[in-house]
């Protein structure tokens, strides 16, 4: 044996030398996405009831939530849908919202009717937010609508009950609500709710806009802005509208995506709301039940030219792993997608240019989006669902984009390298990230107007390692929303993330916190800073597992 070993050694050494002399790192295999939706039998298509007449809200249809409604450990999917216009009723099954149960074999079954989530009594639905607002261990749903909004309580037996009327969640008449997010702004252990509202709208007051006889979707300027709303969870299924007292009532926006993070590192969750053609709002938590709108101070209200753009989806994650959550929002073609680097919790620095995001994005009209470490290299990449507002241009149907994060500094476009199913052109709208098959690589669910959604499964074949953390709060809210996680690998590399389901536009993602570890197999520690203030450290957790961490009692 020794002789063979001795003879073999130089060969290994020569190989090492050859790789070194070639000057090239072996190219890491890039995962790709495959649409598995066609394997499942479900009727849902995103239907905005476009029949020639262009109603204002038709551009926004197809919210999506990835959440485990039946606690079987597999992420299920919920989709919102439009309504018959101008009646604004889900008068036909084609307009029903849809709950798909993940069977775990790559297929999904439509359980909407059984669950009571078809939303037959709702109007035109937009965004959805999943969260366990009553800490009973079952994920609930909030659905945003033109018409009344809806809070669905998960009964824990596969059914939901519409508890909106008794919840105290109301809104001013005819306000069109686009998106919502669950978060615990006062760290009292109960999830509160923020809703981004767009305008006052009914089909009866819808405006008609046309050029040379061709109708187009009216510019948002034609509709008034409204206040976003904040609801404080009082417990026992009751909420109080604290919009005005908490400082949300003064600023009138045209709300789209919501990003939740502790931007200044003070232990309290802050709120960014992207507004369409109105300046963006950054509500900094004052730690006393109120917020201060600080978009100017943080440099995110306008773009660098002082312009308010059509900000769409938003996400806040730490893309360069420096310990502070950064911010991203997308907008329409011809505008500049905004990537902002958090300057140590003091303000945001606009880095779209340096990071190459501005040039990479200039041909796309983005809607939903988010940071997603699709290749598990530890750097969060940027996904955007794309498609024009209208169908008037030559390139209105657009592919989604995936910008790969290069060492936390720049991004490169890998859209055309991650599979034809990913790069399919369409009028994409909502999106959610979830590890649907629990293989540690994030998958993607995307809605497109007038199409069946895509359920894009990550090929998970580049050999990188990962950790998925499922937080269960005890003093904190049961979902652990707002918990800040710091992972240190054996080599000393630090990665950051936090628990939130809110990202992108009209959508709600897997609440489990995902870490890509690259080639590293060993983790030194996982530190969790819970919303309660408790700091918990898990020593040397194994990689490549779904780790459930329960908050200690003190």
């Amino acid at each position, binding site marked *: 044996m020794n002789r063979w070993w001795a003879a073999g050694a130089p060969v290994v050494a020569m190989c090492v030398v050859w790789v070194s002399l070639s000057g090239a790192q072996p190219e890491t295999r890039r995962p790709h996405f495959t649409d598995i939706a066609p394997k499942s039998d479900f009727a849902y298509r995103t239907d905005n009831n476009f029949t020639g007449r262009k109603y204002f809200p038709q551009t926004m249809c197809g919210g999506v939530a990835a959440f485990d409604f039946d606690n079987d450990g597999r992420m299920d999917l919920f989709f919102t849908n439009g309504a018959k216009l101008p009646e604004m009723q889900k008068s036909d099954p084609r307009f029903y919202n849809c709950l798909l149960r993940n069977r775990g074999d790559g297929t999904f079954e439509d359980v909407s009717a059984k669950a009571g989530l078809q939303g037959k009594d709702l109007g035109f639905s937009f965004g959805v937010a999943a969260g366990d607002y009553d800490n009973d261990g079952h994920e609930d749903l909030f659905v945003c609508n033109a018409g009344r909004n809806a809070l669905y309580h998960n009964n824990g037996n596969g059914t939901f009950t519409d508890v909106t009327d008794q919840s105290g969640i109301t809104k001013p008449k005819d306000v069109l609500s686009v998106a919502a997010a669950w978060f615990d702004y006062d760290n009292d252990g109960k999830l509160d709710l923020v809703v981004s509202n767009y305008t006052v709208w009914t089909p009866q007051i819808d405006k008609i*806009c046309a*050029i*040379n006889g061709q109708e*187009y*979707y*009216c*510019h*948002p*300027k*034609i*509709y008034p802005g409204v206040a976003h709303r904040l609801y404080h969870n009082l417990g026992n299924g009751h909420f109080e509208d604290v919009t005005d007292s908490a400082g949300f009532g003064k600023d009138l926006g045209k709300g789209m995506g919501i990003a939740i993070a502790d931007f200044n590192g003070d232990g309290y969750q802050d709120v960014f709301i992207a507004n369409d053609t109105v*300046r963006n709002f950054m509500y900094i938590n004052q730690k006393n039940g109120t917020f201060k709108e600080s978009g*100017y*101070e943080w*440099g995110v*209200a*306008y773009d*660098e*030219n*002082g*312009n*308010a753009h*059509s900000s769409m989806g938003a996400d806040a994650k730490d893309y360069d792993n420096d310990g502070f959550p950064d911010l991203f929002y997308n907008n*329409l*073609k*011809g*505008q*500049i997608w905004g990537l902002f680097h958090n300057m140590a919790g003091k*303000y945001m620095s*606009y*880095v*779209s*240019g*340096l990071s190459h995001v*501005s*040039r990479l994005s*200039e*041909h796309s*009209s983005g809607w939903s989006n988010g940071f997603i470490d699709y290749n598990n290299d530890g750097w969060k990449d940027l996904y955007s669902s794309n498609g024009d*507002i*209208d169908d*008037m*241009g030559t390139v209105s149907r657009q592919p989604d984009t995936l910008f790969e994060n290069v060492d936390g500094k720049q991004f490169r476009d890998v859209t055309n390298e991650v599979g034809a199913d990913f790069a399919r052109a369409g009028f994409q709208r909502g999106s959610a990230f979830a590890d649907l098959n629990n293989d540690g690589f994030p998958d993607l669910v995307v809605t497109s107007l007038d199409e069946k959604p895509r359920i894009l499964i990550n090929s998970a074949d580049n050999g990188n390692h990962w950790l998925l953390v499922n937080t269960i709060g005890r003093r904190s809210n049961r979902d652990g929303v707002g918990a800040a996680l710091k992972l240190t690998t054996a080599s000393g590399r630090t990665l950051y993330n936090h628990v939130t389901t809110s990202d992108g536009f009209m959508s709600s993602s897997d609440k489990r916190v995902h870490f890509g570890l690259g080639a590293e197999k060993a983790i030194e520690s996982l530190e969790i800073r819970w919303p309660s203030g408790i700091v918990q450290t898990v020593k040397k957790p194994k990689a490549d597992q779904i780790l459930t961490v329960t908050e200690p009692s003190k």
Partner: protein
Amino acid sequence: MSRFRPILLALLAFPLFAQQPAADHDALLQHAIALHQSGDLDGAIRAYRDYLAVEPDSVQARSNLGAALARAGRYDEAITEYDIGLQKSPDNPALLLNLGLAYYKTGRHAEAAARFERAMSLSPQFNDQVTLLLAVCYNNLGRYKDAVALLAPLEKDKGGDAGFDYVYGTALIGAGDEAAATAVMNRILAHGDSPEVFLLRGSLELAAHDRVRARADLEKAIALNPKLAGAHARLGELLLALGDGEKARAAFAQELALDPDEFTSNLNLGVLSKEDQAYVEARRYLERALKVRPNDPGVRYQLANVDLATGNLDPAREALEALVKESPQFAEAHATLATVYYRMNRSADGDRERALSEKLMEQRDALQTGTKPR
């Protein structure tokens, strides 16, 4: 193309050959004039300088030297000579006109316009030659209403002249009078298609957000005359509106290859470079735009943004404070100034500017109908 030649002819400088030189050095000056008239510009420049060394107060020689330098393309030197001449003879309309032409050729339209205005006021006989040129300056300076005011009284007599109509039509589009501009354009169209008419029509369509037709017309204009002034810049604006920044950059660069001082292209390339965070390049383009339109609030605002982005808070604050003082309705400047104050921990000032900005934007939004595609 020949229909548009009158504007170009006006760019020639006028030497003052007719005046009599001083007797003592008559031969030297006559020699210089002879060289000048024979086209030996270098020889003429040398001879004029020799003569001026002994007769430095000769306005005629100074003016002729300036004209020879201008004809040789040495505009900055020409400007220096004309300025010296004007110190001796401040109300000399020919010198003012020539100085204006030299400024025009170097893209310094504000200085050119001031000299043309003065020359016209001193010597009304120059009006025919200078009016259109002055209107072009106004257009380049963004003073479209001034150009319209200058040309409108002449429309009855000059309307139908292609050169006049083109400049007038451009002014009307810039001033937002699309109906009048359409009438002028139709008048040009009556003479048949031309690159200029496609450019005018494309500009009108661009203003009306009819981007498909605008693109077709602008591309036709460029196909017919790739060197048509302003066509690449308009196409660049259109491409930007269509979200094609890369092609817009190329169009603006092509415009600057034809005219390094074209305002719109410099401004847009400055802004695009700023967005790329290529701040040195951005500053270079913006400063060139500012040379063309000195004190232009939009350019100064962008330069202040470059300062803010590069962490130069004090220069940014100073520039923005000056801007909002001069242009109190400039909502974006108030907004950016608010951010600067907040960064400087001047919260009260930041709050004040923020409130002003929001009030102004609300007022502006109230005036906008929103009846245009996004």
